[in-house]
């Protein structure tokens, strides 16, 4: 199934889009979504560990199931700052 994924900051510059479409299996997971992302945009491969994925506005681990209609986003490292 095709899912829409929001892109921000570095991820938005790499894809050139605010939203991208990725193909994931019907009962796919965040891990499948990452594989699809790396295939379509190889630039993500080297930085994949630093990119978080959110599902319905919550951070989601790789085993989290992705369903049609979920709100998905790629979350590059946030800007933090020195305390």
């Amino acid at each position, binding site marked *: 199934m095709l899912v829409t994924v929001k892109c921000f900051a570095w991820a938005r510059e790499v894809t050139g889009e605010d939203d991208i479409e990725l193909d994931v299996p019907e009962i796919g997971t965040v891990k499948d979504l990452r594989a699809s992302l790396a295939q379509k945009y190889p630039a993500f491969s080297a930085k994949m560990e*630093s990119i978080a994925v959110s599902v319905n506005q919550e951070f989601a681990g790789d*085993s989290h199931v992705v369903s049609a209609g979920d709100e998905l986003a790629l979350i590059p490292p946030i800007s933090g700052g020195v305390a």
Partner: protein
Amino acid sequence: MICRIVERPVDMDVLIKDVSHDDIGGVCTFIGLVRNHSRGEQVTRLEYQAYPEMSEKKMRQVVAEITERYGVDRVAMEHRIGTLQIGEIAVGIAAASAHRDASFKACRYAIDRIKQIVPIWKKEFGESGAVWVEECPVDAETP
């Protein structure tokens, strides 16, 4: 309580009024400013980007955590996005409690936690070009 992403200047008076009440004895505020240097280089301006809906949800989570930890529920915060110049307010926080100690703790926790879990990014523009500041990789909470 105010928890929002704004595209106009942060107004601290509004945040202070939002948390003030007859049973409040202390309001602690934090103001995050755009600084003119970063990692030894001059910064000329910053561009902030957010995932607004998730940011506001995570800000409300920060307030809930503060309430649980310190018993303080009067916490207001605004984070500005877009292009900001040196000296402008990027983030404002006001925390209020009956006695001062809890308001200091709440305010400190708020800014530290915002920088950990609220999806906001900043791009620094300086002498050697522009760079996304990436200091805090988010650890996914594995189910």
